């Protein structure tokens, strides 16, 4: 084929490798001018190229097509920022967020409720100790409670010979020379002295033979004499005093005290102006007179007043 070609068809091969057979340099054009063989081959290749392009275009035109189905999800391939923002605030997302909030709030409420009432089934004591509380029947003989922190069993009758501290939830109750039964959210105080520092919102009541003192969030003390006479003194907050057998009730606020005696004796009197603390005579058989405050000279404040932080620090 290239026998007559001076350069053995080198130029022709070079051109036939190109994308466009029409684009040739001057030198190549000069060769094709003088080399008839290469020129004939180039012409054939160009004709082939032309026919192939014609074939391609007509072939593509005759291709049967089917409708392209645009996917719905691709109706908008990119959303603007405001559209994305609107999407986030859609009803579905709002409902999901509300559901999550309700579930979390419910779980938190149940947790709080369980914490508040855990004394009925468990008592969490200082030092992360947990004591399982069982509801044992009352014994005839009260159990002696040691000084310091104690983990009372609900329903058990106790005698505290010295000063004992009881942690009740986040509150602290001090008992001294007292005989009592620790019940659910209340203390049945038969005799002795009780000082309670109750966290506001926590339900707690002290029941004495003559009265029921409901806590409204306060620090207060109760002294019960052997004959049942009950002296209540409020240092902070307020308590509600309900006399047993008498529907009358009164609310004592800070600085007020009340003395509840058996019917045969003198009844309680409020002293809002003068702070009168009940006497801490252990198991004094005489009733506590708080009207005049004359007996208060014998009152002894606890050596170290109760402080929740101090107690937890132990």
């Amino acid at each position, binding site marked *: 084929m290239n026998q007559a070609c001076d350069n053995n068809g080198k130029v022709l091969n070079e051109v036939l*490798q190109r994308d466009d057979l029409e684009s040739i340099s001057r030198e190549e054009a000069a060769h094709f001018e003088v080399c008839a063989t290469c020129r004939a081959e180039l012409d054939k290749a160009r004709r082939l190229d032309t026919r192939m392009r014609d*074939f391609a275009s007509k*072939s593509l035109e005759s291709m049967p097509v089917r409708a*392209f189905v645009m996917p719905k999800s691709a109706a908008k391939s990119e959303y603007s920022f405001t559209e994305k923002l609107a999407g986030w605030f859609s009803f579905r997302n709002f409902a999901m967020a509300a559901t999550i909030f309700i579930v979390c709030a419910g779980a938190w409420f149940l947790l709080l409720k369980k914490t508040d009432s855990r004394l009925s089934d468990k008592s969490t004591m200082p030092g992360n100790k947990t004591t399982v509380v069982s509801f044992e029947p009352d014994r005839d003989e009260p159990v002696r409670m040691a000084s310091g922190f104690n983990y009372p069993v609900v329903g058990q009758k106790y005698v505290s010979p010295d000063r004992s501290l009881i942690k009740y939830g986040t509150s602290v109750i001090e008992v001294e020379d007292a005989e009592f039964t620790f019940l659910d959210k209340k203390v049945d105080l038969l005799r002795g002295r009780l000082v309670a520092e109750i966290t506001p919102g926590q339900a707690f009541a002290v029941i004495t033979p003559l009265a029921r003192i409901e806590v409204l969030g306060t620090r207060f003390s109760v002294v019960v004499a052997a004959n049942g006479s009950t002296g209540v003194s409020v240092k902070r907050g307020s308590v509600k005093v309900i006399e047993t057998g008498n529907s009358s009730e009164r609310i004592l606020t800070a600085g007020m005290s009340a003395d509840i005696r058996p019917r045969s004796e003198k009844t309680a009197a409020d002293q809002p102006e003068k702070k009168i603390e009940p006497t801490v005579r252990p198991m004094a058989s005489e009733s506590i007179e708080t009207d005049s405050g004359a007996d208060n000279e014998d009152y002894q404040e606890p050596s170290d007043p109760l402080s929740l932080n101090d107690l937890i620090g132990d």
Partner: protein
Amino acid sequence: MNQKSEVSVIKEVLGGNADCFSQLVNQYYRLCLHYLINAMRIDRETAYDLTQEAFMRALKSLAGFNLERPFKPWLMMICRNLAIDKLKEQNRQTLNLFTDSGKSSDAIESLPEHVDLKNAIDKLSPRQQEIVELHYFADLTCAEIGELINLPVGTVKSELHFARRNMLRILEKSI
């Protein structure tokens, strides 16, 4: 459609006007279909599905497309990858593309004046057939073809040269 107008269409699609994508579909649907059937030897029904799939993939991946490069080779690359995956799925090795010179039963019927060209193409090696398909039908340059089928440009040029020579030899009388 030149590259400038293609870029503007792609920008429109990326801007949220997906309907503009139909312009690209109309432009390249037949080319993809022809390439799949004739060069990749995919049967006709599967080729329609793969063409649809190729455009859907292109639409999804359009955000990552380099606007400075031409759209057609990129689309052809998607078609080719889909076809290779399909062939693998059908337990046909990709290597067979270049060794099996059998005629596809679903090949497009050619017009009478082009039957000789069609026969000549069928007598080429599969690799040369694919290069011829991409060069004449898809109108891709040798560099673009090399990038698409993962071959050096020199090899593509050489293959194109031999393809032309072979076709000239086959069509010696009719050319």
